[in-house]
């Protein structure tokens, strides 16, 4: 275990508290003997100091208020004394487990191509931080300053990493703040299906703010299925950075199913010709929850297709946010971009805010987006009921059909099954 | 008269036309037949001035004027008309507006007075009746939502209105049923006369039962390999292009 002494007191709230913590921890964080990492952490801290937590006056944060984060104080994670906390059933044959942000070798499958980042920092100079950026992304800057551990996945040319579950468990028995950093590098022709799962155990508020960096080389293919199943008082703020080289693919699906406040940001750059990205997702937002899916897709090379379908279902007093920006650079001729976001409102107290956005500087492009917002179709509901299906079940069927339509886009069976399982029955649990 | 001498053209560095020699005297209809990939469509696009083809040699003149030096619209104004194999859709552009704009542009180029809306409509309706076209085709967007047959009829209608002196029909028969084929053929035959000539490009002999050509040329691998009277088409139908290739 990492030799971080217990630090039980809550720090002061807001950005100052996090900066204060950096000052206290900097000499003890992993990689303290690596000058390049020290300066990277310093740069992260300086950038966060300058930016602070975003306010709603920042255009990208118009619909998501970090008030609950700024007002509360968060403490350190404790070194786990016993690891006997119940884990969810594995979603894939091979699983690696992080408890409170730290790698847990005894719970992890040794055959999985995943290692602890903290123990291999000497290998990642020039890789760590090469895809992520700090400017305009204060949470990434904060993560660089404070990360302790995370997964390191580094696949050789042509290597097939198979299907791997990366489970991050948060013991939510006290208000902790976690900033894990995960690095994924695929050499040319490599393949990986990564099921990244955030799982909260306990009722306390906490902050789980991972940053993931993906470097996808030519002809490499990564499927990134994300299951956000944080605890009911958890705050989940994750940031994914991915860059994709020629003919590579970054194929992702985000499922927001937990947390009180969740925002997942993805910054994906199609950097090589004929590379592709799928940024699909579904948000299940129940009473008292706020979920936000925000993506920035940069078409920086010609002949790249991108696809995005995001579906949001809202129940109770809840709010869902979708923001998707597609930026097509002048060089990115023959871009084929498609974006669709659909929302289903199930309650009078729910709100959906949707902002699809196209920014186009190349002329030979085919880009379109669509958005629909509405309630369940009464005619469909009636049709089902007229065939003898009770109303609650009919509703549930229609809601699941709406959501599973998005999940169907995930090609890998294991990943699709994990996502489908989380989706099915959501409404019945909600309505119960 | 259309006169093509030693015409060579390539697309993206690949030579498609490898020295075409062809004369179509005014008043005659010539057919060009050939297998797929022989350069038939390229010939029609090169003559009408589509971009993307590089002329690497030879010449093409129409009534003594150098076609290859002209912009597509200038070629149109000299009387050259291309009936497209795949007529293009123009969403939002009304067919009537399109036809009138084209007609008036060509009339202007010839120094003739332009037609006002009433004159145009009268003319268009007359021609449409002759082609058994429903009048609502004038109101629809150009070729938008038209069936294959309707698109081809629309091409013939344009030809009837613009009255070209040289019509190039690029596989106008592809995808047409026999009734539509007859309408197209009737349209061309109605134009027939001492001042009209036509180059009918086709893969099959079928169309030539309705538009009987004065001469038939066989285009293979970018060259005219054989020429003859209408009987050549029948011969090809019976023995196939392979027989020509062997000869």
């Amino acid at each position, binding site marked *: 275990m990492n030799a971080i002494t217990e630090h039980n007191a809550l720090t002061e709230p807001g950005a100052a508290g996090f900066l204060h913590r950096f000052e206290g921890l900097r000499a003890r964080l992993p990689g303290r003997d690596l000058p390049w990492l020290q300066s990277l952490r310093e740069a992260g801290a300086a950038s966060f100091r300058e930016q602070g937590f975003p306010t709603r006056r920042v255009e990208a944060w118009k619909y998501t208020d970090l008030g609950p984060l700024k007002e509360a104080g968060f403490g350190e994670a404790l070194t786990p004394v016993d690891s006997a906390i119940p884990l969810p059933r594995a979603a894939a044959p091979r699983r690696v487990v992080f408890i409170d942000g730290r790698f847990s070798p005894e719970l992890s499958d040794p055959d999985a191509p995943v290692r602890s980042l903290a123990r291999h920092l000497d290998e990642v100079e020039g890789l760590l931080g090469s895809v992520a950026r700090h400017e305009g992304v204060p949470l990434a800057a904060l993560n660089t300053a404070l990360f302790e551990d995370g997964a390191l996945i580094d696949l050789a040319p042509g290597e097939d990493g198979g299907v791997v579950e990366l489970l991050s468990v948060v013991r939510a028995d006290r208000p902790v703040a976690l900033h894990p950093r995960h690095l994924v590098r695929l050499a040319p022709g490599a393949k990986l299906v990564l099921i990244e799962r955030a799982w909260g155990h306990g009722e306390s508020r906490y902050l789980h703010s991972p940053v993931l960096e993906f470097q996808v080389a030519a002809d490499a293919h990564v499927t990134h299925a994300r299951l956000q199943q944080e605890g009911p008082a958890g705050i989940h703020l994750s940031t994914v950075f991915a860059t994709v080289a020629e003919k590579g693919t970054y194929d992702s699906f985000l499922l927001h199913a937990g947390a009180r406040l969740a925002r997942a940001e993805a910054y994906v750059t199609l950097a090589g010709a004929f590379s592709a990205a799928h940024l699909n997702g579904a948000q299940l937002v129940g009473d008292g929850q706020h979920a936000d899916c925000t993506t920035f897709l940069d078409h920086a090379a010609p002949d790249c297709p991108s696809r995005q379908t995001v579906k949001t279902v809202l129940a109770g007093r809840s709010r869902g946010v979708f923001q998707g920006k597609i930026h097509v650079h002048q060089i990115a001729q023959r871009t084929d971009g498609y974006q669709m976001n659909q929302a289903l409102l199930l309650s009078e107290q729910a709100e959906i805010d949707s902002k699809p956005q196209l920014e186009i500087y190349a002329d030979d492009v085919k880009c379109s987006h669509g958005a629909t917002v509405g309630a369940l179709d009464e005619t469909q509901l009636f049709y089902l009921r007229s065939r003898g299906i009770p109303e609650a079940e009919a509703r549930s069927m229609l809601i699941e059909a709406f959501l599973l339509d998005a999940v169907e886009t995930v090609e890998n069976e294991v990943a699709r099954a994990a996502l489908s399982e989380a989706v099915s029955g959501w409404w019945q649990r909600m309505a119960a | 008269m259309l006169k093509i001498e030693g015409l060579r053209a390539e697309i993206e560095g690949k030579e498609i036309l490898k020295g075409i020699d062809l004369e179509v005297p005014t008043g005659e209809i010539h057919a060009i037949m050939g297998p797929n990939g022989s350069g038939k469509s390229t010939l029609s696009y090169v003559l009408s001035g589509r971009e993307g083809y590089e002329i690497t040699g030879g010449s093409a003149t129409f009534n003594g004027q150098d076609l290859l030096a002209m912009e*597509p619209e200038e070629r149109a104004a000299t009387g050259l008309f291309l009936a497209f194999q795949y007529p293009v859709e123009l969403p939002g552009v009304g067919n009537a507006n399109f036809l009138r704009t084209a007609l008036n542009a060509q009339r202007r180029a010839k120094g003739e007075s332009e037609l006002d809306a009433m004159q145009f409509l009268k003319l268009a309706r007359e021609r449409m009746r002759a082609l058994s076209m429903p009048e609502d085709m004038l109101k629809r967007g150009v070729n938008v939502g038209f069936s294959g047959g309707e698109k081809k009829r629309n091409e013939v209608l344009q030809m009837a209105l613009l009255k070209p002196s040289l019509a190039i029909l690029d596989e106008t028969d592809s995808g047409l049923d026999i009734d539509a084929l007859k309408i197209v053929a009737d349209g061309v035959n109605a134009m027939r006369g001492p001042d009209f000539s036509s180059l009918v490009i086709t893969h099959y002999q079928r169309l030539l039962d309705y538009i009987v050509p004065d001469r038939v040329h066989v285009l293979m691998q970018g060259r005219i390999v054989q020429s003859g009277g209408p009987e050549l088409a029948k011969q090809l139908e019976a023995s196939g292009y392979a027989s020509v290739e062997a000869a």
Partner: protein
Amino acid sequence: MPAVTETIDTVAAVTSGTYKYGFETEIEMEFAPKGLNEDIVRFISAKKNEPDWLLAWRLKAFAMWKTMEEPHWPAVSYPQIDYQDAYYYAAPVKKQGPRSLDEVDPELLRTYEKLGIPLKEQAILAGVEGAGESPAEGRMPIAVDAVFDSVSVATSYKERLGKEGIIFCSISEAVQEHPELVRQYLGSVVPQGDNFFAALNSAVFTDGSFVYIPKGVRCPMELSTYFRINAKSTGQFERTLIIADEGATVSYLEGCTAPMRDENQLHAAVVELVALDDASIKYSTVQNWYPGDENGVGGIYNFVTKRGACRGKRSKISWTQVETGSSITWKYPSCILQGDDSVGEFYSVAITNNRQQADTGTKMIHIGRNTRSTIVSKGISAGKGQNTYRGLVKILPKASGARNFTQCDSLLIGDQCGAHTVPYIENRCISAKVEHEATTSRIAEDQLFYCRQRGLSEEDAVGLIVNGFCREVLKELPMEFAVEAQKLLQISLEGSVG
């Protein structure tokens, strides 16, 4: 109608693609001193012999403006504007107050004639006969209010409209003659502190048009205002207020031009529309301010706040705009759909060529039940132009049964320009239905070739295809304007191909 035919002829005569309305009228002008302070606000108010309440209203706006910041969120860029380096009042030297057309300075009448806007009523009537391709039934004449720099110089057909109880005059005149109406509605849709430019306008607005259509009256002719910026270093800050009382119907047209100058001039107008129960207002704009030259030198900054309130049940406000001019356009004609079953519409064509920038769109705020809105936006970018659609559809919890449909298409011509789409959808009502569609495309090579094969020049072909692209919007314009708008589109695109 000659107003239009003449304009078209003028426009059609263009061969080089230069701006046709770039001439300057030599006329004796009266200016307020340069710069902006409380004294200038007082000067303008005094010049117009305004009542105390209006001066107080202006001063309050000015106080607000001083505390506000220029907005920087639109996707446009321009050098810092020096608000002290402009004239806020410029008017042709003439005696005050309303007058008959015969008294208008002939130089001004010539100016408007040259612009294709005859102010003489008989000239307009003469156009009814022999109107070429027009349908057999007689055309409606158009009543025109002509605003020259800071003041309204003439309004035609006032008497005839007066017989129906319709008030159509300059807003300065309305302040004198109908203060109760002005006081009731001014600032009721766009409050003084609404935004930076609206606050500026509220402090220094000099003139504009005022329309009141009484209960149950269907306005018998198109009403129109023609805005002309002539003087150097002046801003134009007009204020238009249109009120359609219960069951009233009106269609209003707005046109604008300015001379070619190598300085940037500011046009910061405010337009407020109020529709009561069962009333309907159709507001059409063909905006052709000087766009600057191909290097982006000069041109009008068109920073305008336009908003309509559908206060009454079943009321309807429809905005149609064709934006071809200005170096920078920043405007979002909006509808507040307050009355149950009210309807808002926004149809827009915005074209940017050379170095023009446009950030335009709409806001549809659904408050009442069963309110419906439609947005159709067509953006065309050419040259180095940047074109942004920015729109908000907001559905409040009580707007049950609300519907919105948005169609937002961009066309790019060339690879140096940009097309951007930024829709905001905020829905808090379960029974509302919102649909948004957006596409981006360019003119396909085969479409161009097809047209050229039929004898059209490349520019004509582009014009034809662009007009086809804009059809859904152009068909919303009154017919005379639609023809003019088509020609304008073509001219705006000159030099963009080949």
